[in-house]
């Protein structure tokens, strides 16, 4: 059974999510852009600006600045992990106002079950800590994103679902000749089946090889599940110009690709690396002409 909030969101047609946050941080700050999750406590105003820029651009769902806010990724700030997550959800909620929903971001731990770096119980504790704090902070839903290991994704999903919030699980398909497997070899069909069985409300793909290459992944997900599909792809592949990383795809080009994804069955759409509020506005215009 789908979560009531998901039904409510989908009643209005395709739902517009947000775009990249890292790029926005780069533009707004002189500071080195690493471990920006700490900014939820040290520079909440910068984080809120980014969140607000997506609300203003027309996002119906914005995420939170909590992607790597887990105790494995913040080894010297473990005492602050809960506060960082709670603040991340609160900041996005403040920016969201009444009409925009906040789906809080949980990323991978970068620890490998297969190498014995961690066991299932430890992973579960880490994700439970993060998900609980995000729910406490007022998140409307949780997005587990950029996952490549299905076992880790399922553990995160179970931890997130325990909060009672709707849960999106989105994996990164960027490997293999067709670019349709995760780094760990998971196909969209494998992912859709395992995640649906484990109780995901929405299943998706984010990051990856670029919005121009994600359509086959979207189609494979649609084939494999009746659950709504979430796609947040990158603005094509980046190129390096004068030691600067540049995404050359324009907002309108990106919006054109997103329209194709919506026709293919995607219900929640937005962008990932290289996308900005301008991209979200462009998608908004193309999805809702006039």
């Amino acid at each position, binding site marked *: 059974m789908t979560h009531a909030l998901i039904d409510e969101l989908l009643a209005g047609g395709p739902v517009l999510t947000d775009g990249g946050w*890292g790029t926005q941080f*780069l533009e707004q700050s002189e500071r*080195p*852009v*690493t471990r920006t999750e700490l900014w939820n406590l040290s520079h909440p105003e910068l984080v809120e600006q980014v969140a607000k820029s997506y609300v203003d651009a027309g996002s119906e769902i914005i995420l939170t600045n909590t992607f*790597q806010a887990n105790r494995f*990724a913040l080894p010297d700030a473990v005492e602050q992990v809960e506060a960082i997550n709670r603040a991340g959800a609160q900041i996005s909620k403040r920016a969201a106002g009444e009409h925009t929903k906040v789906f809080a971001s949980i990323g991978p731990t*970068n*620890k*490998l079950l*297969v*190498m*014995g*770096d961690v066991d299932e119980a430890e992973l579960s504790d880490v994700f439970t800590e993060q998900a609980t704090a995000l729910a406490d902070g007022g998140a409307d839903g949780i997005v587990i994103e950029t996952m*490549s*290991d299905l076992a880790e994704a399922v553990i995160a999903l179970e931890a997130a679902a325990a909060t009672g919030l709707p849960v999106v699980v989105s994996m990164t398909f*960027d*490997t*293999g*000749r067709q670019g349709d*497997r995760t*780094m*760990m*070899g998971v196909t969209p069909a494998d992912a859709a089946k395992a995640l649906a069985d484990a109780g995901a409300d929405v299943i998706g793909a984010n990051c990856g090889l670029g919005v121009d290459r994600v359509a086959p992944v979207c189609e494979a997900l649609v084939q494999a599940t009746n659950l709504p599909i979430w796609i947040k792809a990158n603005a094509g592949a*980046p190129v*390096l110009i004068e*030691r600067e*990383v540049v995404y050359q795809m324009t907002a309108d080009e990106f919006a054109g690709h997103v329209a194709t994804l919506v026709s293919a069955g995607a219900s929640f759409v937005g962008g990932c*690396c290289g996308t900005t509020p301008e991209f979200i506005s462009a998608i908004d215009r193309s999805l809702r002409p006039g």
Partner: protein
Amino acid sequence: MELLEELYEAVLTGDFFTTPDLTRRGLDEGFAPQALIDDAMIPAMAEAGRLFEEEDYFVPELLSSGRAIKASLEILHPLLRAGNAEYVGKVVIGTVQGDLHDIGKSLVAVMMQGAGFDVIDLGTDVSPSEVVAAIEEHKPDVVALSALLTTTMLAMPRTIDAIVDAGLRDQVQVLLGGAPMNEKTAKEFGGDGYADNANAAVRLALELVGAS
């Protein structure tokens, strides 16, 4: 099945519970440590690498094979050090400053070990000065640097600049890799080589040390 075959199979299938036992049994049966490595483990890892390139294997299978070798090498290394281990070369490896991603780097590290390199793994978020210090201490043939993020890969040229400034650039070959990288970028950053997967990285390292 003969012991070498069993060890080969165990590494290839990533059976890291069994490889230590097989290794001890091999030693009991009189195999030289180096023979267990050269005649079973290295060929098995090479086959795992081939299957990875063929996309029959993915990262988990390859990591399990690496872990199987690692478990075995923990038994053999002390013996090898006593009896002058034959390494094909020495590698210092790490993920660059600001980047905490471990997986790709660890994969390359275990595969390099599996190919017969002495591997010093500096971990993640390694600063340029730590890389320079490691070169001075370990005198490696190859320095392998990894970055997963477009925002952190710019630490690669900074690291290479530091190696140049320390006057060590001629002493090492610098390999670059990671999701946002490509051949052209690696060249622009001042690297000696680029590989787009772990197996290719091992092949390239073997070429660079003249062992292929």
